C-alpha cells in the first residue's frame, strides 16, 4: 500500500488555476483526499507520486509537506531546586 502523507498545495500566482478548479480535479483523482481548504491553500492526503503527477498539470501551484510546529514554552520551569537558605 502506498505511503500516504499530507501535503499543502498553494496557489503561488494569481494567474494560476483557481483553487476551486484544482480542488475539483483532486476530488476526481483516485488515491488523493482533500482534508481541508482555505484559499489559497489546500491540505491533501495521498502518496507523494500520485500527488506530484496530479499537481504537475497546474503551473503556478506548489506542494509543501505538512509539518508540525511545537507549542511555545513560556511558563517558568525550575530545572533544579534552589539552594536551601540558612
Amino acid at each position, binding site marked *: 500500500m502506498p505511503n500516504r502523507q*499530507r501535503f*499543502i498545495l*498553494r496557489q*503561488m500566482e494569481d494567474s494560476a488555476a483557481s483553487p476551486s478548479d484544482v480542488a475539483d480535479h483532486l476530488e476526481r483523482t483516485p488515491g488523493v483526499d482533500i482534508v*481541508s481548504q*482555505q*484559499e*489559497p*491553500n489546500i*491540505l491533501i492526503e495521498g502518496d507523494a507520486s500520485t500527488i506530484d503527477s496530479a499537481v504537475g498539470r497546474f503551473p503556478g501551484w*506548489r506542494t*509543501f509537506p*505538512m*509539518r*508540525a*510546529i*511545537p*507549542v*511555545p*514554552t*513560556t*511558563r*517558568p*520551569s*525550575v*530545572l533544579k531546586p*534552589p539552594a536551601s537558605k540558612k
Partner: protein
Amino acid sequence: MNLVQEETAGDPGASVDFGPAANGGEHSTHVAGIVGARPSPAFPLRGVAPGATIRSYRVFPNTGKGATNFDIMNAIDRAVKDNCDIINLSLGGGSEDEGVRAAIGKALDHGVLVVAAAGNDSRKAVSFPAAFMPCVGVSAMGQKGSFPDDSSEASDVDKPFGDPDKTCFIAGFSNFGPQIDLTGPGVGIVSTLPDDTYGVMSGTSMACPAVAGVAAHLLSSQPAIQAKTGTERAEALKEALARSAASKGFGRQFEGFGLPERL
C-alpha cells in the same frame, strides 16, 4: 472579546479543536496584552500600544499538540486579507519551512511587517520563521531587580550582560544569531490571562509582541510610512524600528540593533 468563539461559530469541528481561550489559549492572551492591554481602574495593565486594534488567529489547538504549517500559512494569509499592518508570530521551531516562507513573502508583498520570536532553546540558532531575513527576529532580555531574587526568573540570568548597565542580560533561554534584529523584554513579564486575570510568563514569545507594539506605535505616528505600499512599506517600518533602537551592549548577535526606545 473571544475571537476564537466568534470565528468558530457554526463550525462544530473547529469549536472542538479551537475552544475558548480559557481552555488553552493563555499564551496568546498574554501576548495580546503585551501589545495592547488597555488599563482600567480595576485592571491597571497597559500594553505597549494600547490604541492598537488586535486580531487573533489561533493556530495551536486545545489538544496541547503543536500547530501545523498549514494552520500558520492560513493564519498569515487571513491576516493579510483582513488588512492587518503587523503580524506577530510568537512561535517557531525546526528548520525552514517553504510554505510558511511563501505566506510571509506574500504578507511582505502587501506591506505587512512580520515580527517573530527567536525561540527559547537556550542559545541555539534562531528558530524559523524568525531566521527568515525579511522578518524582524526578536531575542529576549531581562533586568535584575524586575523580579524577586529567589524566583524562577533568576535562573534565566545569564551572560552576556549589558554595557554599561550590568543589571541587564540576554535571557539564558533566548536563541541568538545573525538574524536577530532587535531585543525586547522577555523575562518575568506580567500580562493578561483569560478570565480577567493576569500573570507572569517568560520567553521570546513575550519579547516579540513588545517589539510588535513599538512597530504599531511607529506606524501610527509616521504618515510617511503609512503612505507607502507593498514591500517598501514593510521595509520602511522595519528600518524605523531599527532607528528607534539603542544598543544595550550585548553584542550584535544577541540584540541586533538593540532595544527599541519605548521599551
